[in-house]
């Protein structure tokens, strides 16, 4: 009887999964049948299993005695750095807002400095009468102020009509 041909890539994948106990029922049966029929497949399975067992020779490294403490110290350092950075960011944010307000204030000052003066208030009817009173013109030119004319008018120092 001729020996079945070498394992295909798929059969090899399945063989490894079979050794790991990861195959479904149907594929397990197929692989077991192949192992029964083929000495080549059995040799392959045995070599894979024994190679896998060689990994047991690898050292089992353990963390050093100080590992936990050093990890906690590192965590604390990071926390401190984060807190400091957060404060720096908050401080920088405050400075930023202050600078923005300053810029806005300065810009506002320069913008409104050159703006036209507000329109004079509408004269009251009494003031209109003072303006229109021809006799007052002379005094107005002298004192250059309406308030003074009002005072004179209130004191009735001017004739009622001219």
């Amino acid at each position, binding site marked *: 009887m001729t020996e079945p041909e070498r394992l295909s890539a798929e059969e*090899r*994948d399945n*063989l*490894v*999964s079979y050794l*790991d106990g*990861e195959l479904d029922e149907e594929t397990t049966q197929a692989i077991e049948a192949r192992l029964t029929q083929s000495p080549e497949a059995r040799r392959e399975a045995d*070599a*894979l299993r*024994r*190679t*896998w*067992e*060689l*990994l*047991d*020779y*690898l*050292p*089992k*490294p*353990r*963390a*050093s005695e100080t*590992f*936990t403490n*050093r*990890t*906690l110290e*590192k*965590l604390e350092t*990071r926390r401190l750095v984060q807190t400091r950075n957060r404060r720096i960011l908050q401080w920088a944010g405050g400075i930023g807002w202050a600078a923005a307000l300053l810029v806005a204030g300065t810009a506002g000052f320069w913008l409104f400095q050159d703006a036209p003066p507000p329109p004079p208030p509408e004269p009251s009817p009494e003031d209109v009468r003072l303006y229109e009173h021809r006799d007052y013109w002379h005094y107005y030119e002298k004192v250059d102020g309406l308030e003074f004319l009002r005072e004179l008018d209130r004191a009735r120092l001017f004739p009622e009509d001219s």
Partner: protein
Amino acid sequence: MLRVRADEPGAFEELVDRFQHRLLAVMRHLVGNAEEAEDLAQEVFLRVYRSRKDYHPQAKFSTWLFTIANNLALNSYRRKQRKPAVQLDIQDSGPLGPRPAEQMLLDRAPGPDHRLGHEELASIVQEALAQLNERQRMAVVLNKFEDMSYQEIAEVMHISTKAVKSLLSRARTELRELLRGYVEMAEPESDAVQAEKGEAP
């Protein structure tokens, strides 16, 4: 982990104490270097702490832990690839045959009458493991030393179970090739393990 998530005092310390050796062993097998393995393991725990509020108890804690470990180990590997030191351990045999480090292993295969000591064999197996690419190595280490199922490995590595199956098959075939000359030299497994534990075979 739920206690860590709730910021319970002392809980994080307890968690580190409990998982440090397992994590360190995995990291050591992945990166090879003891100092780098400790640094990476510490970083894993710090990230666990940082992401503690994102932990959902549906996920097994060790799966979550090793997912972070896998990400960090891969990042570290990629960083090293970008800044390569003198490196002989190029992965996988090329079309021109075994690469230098693989050839070294093959050349050192002892004669049939030679029985290897435990330490010598450990060093050879370590070299063979280092020849696997980083994804194969991760899958092998999780399967062998963490006893993870294909499904759990798939979750940790963010790949399908089919991809895990293929990854492990290729890794084991490659290891078999690299260690072909040593399988017969090894003491029976039970003897080796018992010897290590200091027990009579």
